[in-house]
């Protein structure tokens, strides 16, 4: 399963696609691996929450920056949240 933020122009669309690929209740690890595999920087920010950030064009002076929060438990993914910002220097 490959997931590319570059296919989407808004957070709602990307979140729907990510949730379709990794639905609530499915294991957290594959979703996390996919995000890391595409170049996202991920960091655990709580007992059950991982925060990931994906900058599309890190060498550009302005571009899309995606922010993802994956919340999960032993029962798998409980919530996915995505925000999108146009980030520039």
């Amino acid at each position: 399963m490959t997931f590319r933020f570059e296919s989407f122009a808004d957070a709602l669309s990307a979140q729907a696609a990510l949730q379709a690929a990794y639905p609530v209740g499915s294991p957290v690890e594959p979703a996390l691996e996919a995000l890391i595999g595409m170049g996202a920087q991920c960091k655990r920010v709580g007992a059950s929450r991982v925060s990931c950030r994906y900058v599309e064009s890190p060498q550009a002076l302005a571009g899309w920056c995606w922010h993802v929060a994956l919340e999960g438990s032993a029962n798998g993914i409980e919530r996915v949240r995505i925000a999108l910002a146009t980030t520039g220097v």
Partner: protein
Amino acid sequence: MSAVRVELMASAVGKIGGVVWHHLFLVAVDGSGNQSFLRAGPQCLPLESIAGRQDQFGDALETYEASPAGPYGVITFSSATYEAGGVDFDPVAANVPLASGEAAVKLWEALQNAAKALGQEQIPYDPIGRNANWACMELLRCCGAKAALPPKRWAPGAGRPASEPAPHSATRRVGQAIVM
């Protein structure tokens, strides 16, 4: 929100010429620990950043509207909850305390007002001139806040005061290195 602390944040976003550049924004914390951000950014991105993408209505190009201010539109400000999965959230961003206690309440309110006023000026966004870092520091300058960047963080645009026009020669510098 009633801020008890206001901080300047520097988040590493990318590399230019092998040097890490940082995106600046502001964060306020209230008495309950809730955080809010205030940030600047381009109103839009160039057409090539949209082509081939899908939004919730289908092809993103169909709803694309070019800004008369240029490919990046004008500088826009936004403020919302600072939390995981939200805009600009970076748990490892460098932070510099700007104010606390009563001073934080006043500064946060002043920053919000300054953002509103600066936004109304409809300043065209220039990635190598008046950009998000410039706007963030300009808000602080408008509010009379002392704004020192975190040590050894390069934030292009942050050092240019409003009175200094952006360079327009063919050999413009990408930004101004700020090393404290």
